[in-house]
């Protein structure tokens, strides 16, 4: 079944949908969905007052949000199953603490996409803001599982504090990507922003290009691309594209950040002068 919710209320106020998981919405009978609570500017309202609902039969069970979706905050918060599609731009905290299922955004996503995520698949066709897949304020651990694909660029501190999981950014990253990473894997197919891997303890950052890395990183020659090929093979099977040169040429490897534990690595295909 496919349920479409169109946000069409005449206002600019943010709508917090963090209390609605797709599997819960899809399990409710007609008439009950409109009674669910959403927070508009922090105050509770029945969902039916702000959204227009359409129900249709479809091959896959999914909840689709469209309309003024940029106003929606925390869509898919803590979702553990099902499929949520945001047709348009997603507001901040989309996929916050996501545990499972699949969340797709057809446009750009705001800040804090997939923060503290621990499972599931989050795919953004556009770009994402700052702190993508990072930790909640005051916490050391960011993503602890799951996968984030962002086709465009990401803002600063993407993957900060990452403990486990996979992030693939099709474009460029902002400052300090993977800062304080504890483990996990980040691919930035474009250019890595300055300060990448600051206080990286373990884990891998793979980038298409980068300026000189932070002084805590030591050159370690050419990487053995064997494990990378497992990822690239998986990307090909998912239909993700990456520069063809990655299949032929091994990246340069830098270990670090040696100012902390130093068991991490940054792999760069093209070092920019």
């Amino acid at each position, binding site marked *: 079944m496919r349920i479409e919710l169109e946000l069409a209320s005449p206002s600019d106020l943010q709508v917090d949908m963090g209390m609605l998981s797709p599997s819960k919405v899809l399990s409710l009978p007609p008439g009950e969905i409109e009674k669910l609570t959403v927070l508009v500017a922090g105050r509770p309202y029945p969902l039916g007052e702000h959204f227009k609902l359409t129900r249709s039969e479809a091959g896959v069970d999914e909840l689709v949000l469209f309309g003024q979706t940029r106003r929606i905050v925390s869509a898919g918060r803590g979702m553990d199953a099902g499929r949520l599609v945001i047709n348009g731009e997603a507001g901040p905290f989309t996929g916050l603490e996501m545990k499972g299922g699949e969340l797709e955004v057809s446009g750009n996503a705001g800040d804090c996409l997939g923060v503290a995520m621990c499972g599931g698949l989050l795919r953004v066709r556009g770009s994402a803001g700052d702190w993508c897949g990072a930790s909640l304020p005051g916490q050391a651990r960011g993503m602890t599982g799951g996968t984030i694909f962002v086709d465009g660029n990401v803002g600063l501190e993407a993957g900060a504090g990452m403990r486990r*999981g996979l992030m693939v950014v099709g474009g460029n990253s902002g400052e300090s990507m993977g800062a304080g990473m504890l483990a996990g*894997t980040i691919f930035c197919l474009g250019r890595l922003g300055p300060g990448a891997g600051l206080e990286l303890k373990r884990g891998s950052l793979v980038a298409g290009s980068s300026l000189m890395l932070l002084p805590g990183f030591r050159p370690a020659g050419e990487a053995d691309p064997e494990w990378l090929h*497992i990822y690239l*093979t998986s990307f090909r099977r998912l239909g993700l594209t990456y520069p063809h040169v990655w*299949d032929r040429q091994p990246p340069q490897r830098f270990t670090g950040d040696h100012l902390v534990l130093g068991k991490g690595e940054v792999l760069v295909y093209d070092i920019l002068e």
Partner: protein
Amino acid sequence: MRVQDVLIDDTFAEAFPMAVSRLVITADSPRLAFQAAQAATGLAFSIIGCACEAGLGAALSSDQTPDGRPGQAVLLFSYSAEKLEEHLFLRIGQAILPSATSACFNGLQAEKTAKVGSRLRYFGNGFQSSKLLDGRRYWRIPVADGEFVLDEMYGLGQGVGGGNLILLGSDRAAALEAAEAAVAAVCGIPGVIAPFPGGVCRSPSKPGSRYKNVRASTNDAFCPTLRSRTATQLSPEVKAVYELVIDGLSEEAVGQAMAAGIRAACRPGMLRITAGNYGGKLGPYHLHLHKLLETYPG
């Protein structure tokens, strides 16, 4: 029953459940993958002495392997999951890890698993690292030509071991030619191996011996030089006998391979084809030669 004038005995091969694992070995070239796979199957001919029977499966193209490199499948069998786990650890660690450019992946999804990568990683002496992709953990062990990548867990399934054919020929050359043709046909069936050297065994055994501490001894009933001293199974025209042992991922695969082997072996110089069993008292799988030829027509 006769096929191409070769007598096919109305008997059956008695097969047993065995623990099985499938490895996918990759390397920079098909030759290197084959070399590593061959090393991994060394001295794994008979469960009696080696506790493991192993053989090469299909050569794999780069789109059939997890890392997009050419590969080689390997099947390993043992009498228990615990023993097989020991062999996986030993063979991956001692044969595949040292092989140039190699990587080793699990090729069998099964409920029961063996922890191999999580033990072998200690060879990295603290420099090892892991990657988790789609719920599957890979270990990266630094070695002198880069990194050895292997799965953390390997599936331990239940296969079928002990499928067999005994080929009786009018001379040694003809029997061997028939046996080699049968091996080629058997190895064309997916999911089976013929573990003996070249797939052919010239020393069929029987359980027990007149010497204590010897678990198996030569099957005198099939030895041409003993025909005057034992209750021989050989008619006067038979000059040489070869055995094929066939293990597989399923009873169906073993049966199909036996049928293909029988057909390929029926050629000039072959007199009779039979199979070994223990009267049906030991193994739950009874692979009747006549039924197999009916079920799997050529």
